[in-house]
């Protein structure tokens, strides 16, 4: 025991000492930081020698490599390596949130992999562009890819292109037909029906709605629906973001927040809602444990994922978010989402661009994505319609084709990361029924106030 006492006394003595040395080191840290870290800028001249071995690091947020989009992405990469034996593409894949955290790590050390998944949204791409981390792309290189007009806007800044969109995204309500039929419950067409239906499912002991509320990004998009259904206009949130008005005190936003609270009070959100991450919520729905799943159109692969029972796969459908007397079902929360950018520090810019050209050839990404029912490309794809699409896929196309107005980039992605975190946390509180509509709107305004 004596020794312990001695040690702790000694530690006490050291406090002062440690404090002194901290001061000194702090000074060092400052000076060292002033020298910019040496970026690996190798002249591109070496590459002219023909069969030089090239390794491209490819960093993607399509974590599931055996299903859906991740599988297609991987198969295009594999095919490219087959055709170009001198190119090796190393894939690093992480789920959304870990992906973004890791991307920040790479960015802060200026060590971005050669090709990264990016989002054409200010919260993600703007800091990267502003700090000169992304390679400017030449739109002419990708003319034959047939990108939908407007789809590259989010990836552009100052008239320069820094990325290519992979998908057209929109948020829908997936539902399990069998659970509805077996329980004699009708598919909801209006917002109030959605609340009603949720109550009915609860009575039967079935989870009504699930989504990835733990990560939280689907909730603000969901709220955009609620706000549009209350006001009839997606533009109202943009007006707030532009500083023209505020969330607080607006009757429509108030009503929108209330409509979410109504759902919460009807116990519409699945058990464990706030702790369900993407995989958990998707499994809950896919294993028939929840009747509805609020998620993007990229989940068309639900109908083909063999980890789920056949009964589910044959019964999964998609409907637009229910309407109201002001907002129509055809008013869609839609945006051009994920895509790719190339790192400015890449040692092989030409090879990276070449691979991207290959990737975005219409018969590669667009065709495979569509024909496997894994999502909707941001490229023209009408030539690839086969008429053999799954019912779920057809449902999704119908929803998209009938669009009358669209929300564009989700508002949580229009600011900084800090803004986004604050917005998501406010939504988690709202959906978790632990905040009043007034407090919720105030928190949103506080988040907006953080924006430069």
């Amino acid at each position: 025991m004596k020794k312990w006492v001695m040690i702790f006394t000694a530690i006490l003595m050291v406090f002062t000492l440690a404090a002194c040395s901290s001061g000194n080191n702090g000074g060092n840290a400052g000076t060292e930081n002033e020298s910019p870290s040496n970026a690996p800028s190798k002249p591109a001249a070496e590459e002219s020698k023909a069969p030089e071995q090239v390794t491209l690091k490819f960093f993607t947020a399509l974590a599931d490599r055996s299903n859906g989009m991740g599988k297609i992405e991987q198969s295009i990469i594999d095919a490219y390596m087959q055709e170009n034996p001198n190119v090796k593409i190393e894939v690093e894949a992480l789920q959304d949130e870990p992906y973004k955290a890791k991307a920040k790590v790479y960015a802060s050390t200026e060590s971005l992999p050669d090709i990264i998944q990016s989002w054409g949204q200010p919260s993600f791409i703007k800091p990267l562009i502003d700090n000169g981390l992304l390679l400017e792309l030449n739109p002419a290189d990708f003319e034959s890819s047939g990108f939908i007009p407007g789809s590259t806007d989010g990836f552009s800044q100052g008239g320069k292109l820094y990325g290519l969109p992979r998908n057209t995204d929109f948020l829908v309500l997936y539902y399990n037909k069998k659970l509805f039929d077996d329980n004699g419950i009708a598919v909801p067409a209006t917002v109030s029906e959605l609340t009603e239906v949720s109550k009915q499912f609860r009575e039967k002991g079935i989870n009504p709605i699930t989504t990835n509320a733990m990560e939280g990004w689907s909730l603000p998009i969901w709220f955009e629906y609620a706000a549009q259904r209350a006001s009839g206009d997606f533009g109202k949130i943009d007006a707030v973001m532009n500083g023209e008005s505020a969330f607080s005190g607006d009757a429509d936003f108030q009503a929108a927040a209330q409509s979410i609270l109504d759902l919460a009070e009807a116990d519409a959100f699945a058990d464990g809602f706030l702790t369900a991450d993407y995989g958990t919520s998707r499994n809950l729905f896919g294993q028939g444990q929840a009747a509805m799943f609020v998620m993007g159109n990229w989940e068309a692969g639900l109908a083909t994922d063999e980890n789920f029972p056949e009964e589910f796969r044959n019964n999964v459908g998609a409907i637009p978010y229910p309407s109201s007397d002001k907002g129509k079902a055809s008013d869609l929360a839609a945006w051009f989402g994920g895509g790719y950018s190339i790192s400015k520090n890449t040692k092989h810019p030409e090879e990276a661009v070449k691979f991207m050209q290959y990737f975005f050839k219409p018969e590669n990404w667009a065709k495979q994505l569509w024909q496997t029912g894994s999502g909707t490309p941001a490229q023209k794809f009408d030539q690839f319609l086969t008429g053999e699409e799954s019912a779920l896929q057809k449902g999704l196309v119908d929803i998209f084709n009938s669009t009358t107005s669209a929300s564009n980039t989700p508002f949580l992605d229009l600011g900084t990361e800090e803004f986004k975190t604050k917005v998501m946390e406010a939504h988690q509180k709202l959906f978790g029924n632990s905040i009043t509509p007034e407090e919720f709107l105030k928190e949103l305004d506080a988040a907006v106030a953080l924006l430069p």
Partner: protein
Amino acid sequence: MLRKGLLQTVLWMVALLQLFPLIWLINYSFLKSGEFFGSGILKWPQTPEWNNYISAFTYGSVPKYLWNSAFITIAAILAAAVLSLMLGYAFTRMEWRLRGVFMAVIMLGMIVPIHATLLPNFILFDWIKLLDNPLALILPYIAFSLPISTLIISGFMETIPRSIEESAVMDGCSVYGVIFRILMPMTKPALATVCIMNFISWWNEFIMANTFLTSETFKTLPFSIMKFAGQYSSNYGAQFAVMTMIALPTVIMYLLFTEQMSRGITAGAVKG
């Protein structure tokens, strides 16, 4: 007698609570993904789903991560053992004025939370180009092993009579000779303890591994479950198989060296 029986029952029940999750883990690693959602608690699979383990090996890159983990952990624990042996000797045998202060500085490491160094070390490793290098893990692992290891080893050294060393020096042995030829074999029990304790903590460490290692090449085993959970998130069976494989090495290691482990904790605490 009755009391004895009651005592045994209580002990068995708690033992079950401590073991149950492990049993459950292994059990479920043999089930198909769909079977997870039934109502049973433990289920005997009709046919054990060895496929889960095959998927774990192929998709989870288990062999590669296993090797990385083994390499990084072993490098760190060996270096930590040698360095703390040297420090222990300097602190218990050498005669110098500042030894109390320096010993205390090192002991400070037992208080410093490892997570407080995550962010600055990240920048630091970037400056010295060590990100994505096994050293980015090995160095902090060693550094954070030193306090407790040095404490245990010096505690043990205090119990060794100095006369042996003195006679060795008479015979012309240098201080280094004394440490590595005479004391090292004698402190073997303490060294073993230190190594095993460090093995278990670093084998299981993943926050640093997740932050400092960026490419697949050097990832360690605990990471495979994170990767697996993302990449094959709907394949529950295989996830459980990976978890079983992460858990087993330390459990086996522990079962083999239970005595050294227990003695280590005894040494670390009682000697104090």
